[in-house]
């Protein structure tokens, strides 16, 4: 998104202060230690249990009191197993995807939210893959509950989870073309007609942003 003032105005048009809000940087760099809270402990435990830690973890991001570990795709399965067996993250509460078309070769992100009841802690794993090669190892063997979540992510983003027991669409009809949650997939909708006037579909409407 490019920086714009109110309704696209640049310069002195905006007096309210809204358009002049400073947009904070998206945190892309790895957070340095100490991470704070229980995050150091999680990182330490993982490093101890998994010697290839520095190779598997691309970066660690601590933002708004939440820990995200960016994991390399090839190491994801191993890391997940260690997290479940040794670090007692018993539950993977959900999987979801985000499409960032502007990040070249890392367009598709998959996010795993993990919960440990034993430790009463939460962490998040994030895996980035490219649009051209959207393969990620399935974690159904580690947490059976990721089954439907991975199917949903496949359905919505077209990310292929290798070794999934039955990777089929779950929300959309089986013969549906495209993956609706991708950013290049239009929202669509039907123009609304009322007394001769037409209101365009939501994604076609004039918008102030």
């Amino acid at each position, binding site marked *: 998104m490019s920086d714009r003032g109110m309704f696209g105005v640049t310069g002195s048009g905006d007096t309210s202060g809204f358009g002049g809000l400073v*947009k*904070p*940087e998206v*945190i892309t760099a790895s957070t340095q230690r100490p991470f704070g809270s229980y995050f150091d402990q999680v990182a330490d435990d993982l490093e101890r249990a998994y010697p290839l830690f520095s190779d598997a973890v691309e970066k660690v991001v601590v933002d708004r009191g*939440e820990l995200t570990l960016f994991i390399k795709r090839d190491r994801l399965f191993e890391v997940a197993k260690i997290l479940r067996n040794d670090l007692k993250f018993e539950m993977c509460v959900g999987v*979801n995807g985000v499409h960032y078309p502007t990040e070249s070769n890392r367009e598709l992100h998959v996010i795993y*939210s993990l919960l440990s009841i034993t430790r009463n802690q939460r962490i998040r794993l994030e895996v980035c893959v490219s649009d051209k090669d959207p393969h990620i190892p399935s974690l159904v063997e580690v947490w059976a*509950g990721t089954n*439907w979540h991975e199917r949903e992510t496949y359905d919505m983003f077209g990310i292929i989870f290798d070794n999934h027991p039955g990777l089929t669409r779950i*929300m959309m009809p089986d013969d549906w073309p495209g993956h609706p949650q991708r950013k290049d997939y239009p929202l669509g909708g039907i123009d609304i007609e009322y007394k001769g006037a037409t209101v365009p579909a939501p994604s076609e409407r004039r918008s102030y942003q």
Partner: protein
Amino acid sequence: MTTFTDPYASSQETTEGRVYSVTGGDWDSLVTEIGATKEERVVVNMGPQHPSTHGVLRLILELEGETITETRCGIGYLHTGIEKNTEYRNWTQGVTFVTRMDYLSPIFNETAYCLGVEKLLGITGDITERATVIRVMMMEFNRISSHMVALGTGALELGALSPMIFAFREREKVLDVFEMVSGLRMNMAYVRPGGVAQDLPEGALSKIRQTVKDLRHNFKDNAKLLIGNSIWIKRTQGIGYLDLAGCTTLGITGPVLRSTGLAWDLRKAQPYCGYENYEFDIPTTDTCDVYGRFLIRMQELEQSLRIIEQCVTKLEKLEGQAVMVADKKIAWPSQLSIGADGMGNSLNHIREIMGESMEALIHHFKLVTEGFRVPAGQVYTAIESPRGELGVNLVSDGGTRPYRVHFRDPSFNNLQSTAAMCEGGQVADVIAAVASIDPVMGGVDR
């Protein structure tokens, strides 16, 4: 043997052998024909339009006699693309969408979403105590109304009509409270980023106190009907078994998890909205079955009433406090009031923005047309909905609209346990097991 063609019962050769499809017609003629084959595997398609599947859920059951050998769920019939839609509306409008996901617990959807937006904005600490207490009170009322549907329809599906009548009578009382507070009985869009849409109307607390009293009295009716009822116990005890190991690997939360004896409730374990300041218990059972889940829901009703009573006491002391965050760049500007021609902006607010304050007019215009900007980042917030962990994953790119809204709906996740609960059991027990998961298809499919 004579061959005949029945237009409703066609058969075809497949790699698995001869397959008969039955969509109606005469069962007897089919039985005659099937009698010739050795194997008797019957695949029954139950739903999506079926009174006992708890909504538009399609169950594909493979049977050997009355025993189920395989269960699969077909979902997606209620997929409405809410997550996609929110990306084309501003952050405040998102509330109106997400409230329609799990339509039996709208306040939870709204609160989880708003907690996420507030975390992204970094204003979690600025939400006034009055707004938070109102949120808690509405959530607990919502838990009651949701559990009432779970109990009522669950009993109805097993053939018990009277509990449904009582449950919906109680739910009606709760919906009256919702209507009084928010103007709507369902899908209220009442909780907004920064607080709640409106303060409680005059006389609300006394009405709420009366409702709590009535509910506590009336809950006894259903308790008397079902707890210890020998038919009910026969239909539910030992049915839909799922133990702790099964729950953790499948990511199951809520009453199903608590029926394994683990007192895991996010309100206690990872408190939000100040739940650490309330006194309440977490009911558990260790039976891992449908009856245990039923008992848990019954006991949670009383715990919710306890929390509501504490909310009322707190709200009395917080009379007059604002219900929206003070930051004028975020707070929704309009103050609604009810006039002769329906609900609209209050005259005082219109007088202020049109005649007195240019700044207020700008704020109103900007917030309504454009919305506020939310700093870029990603958050996950989870709350304990009546069905388990309701998680919201929000991604902002720094704009006025969400970049990605994802709901981790407990119904969606918990429905995965259907196979584990049903296989090896009887057809009739599928109904009991699914009812005990209490899936709401609006939340499953979103």
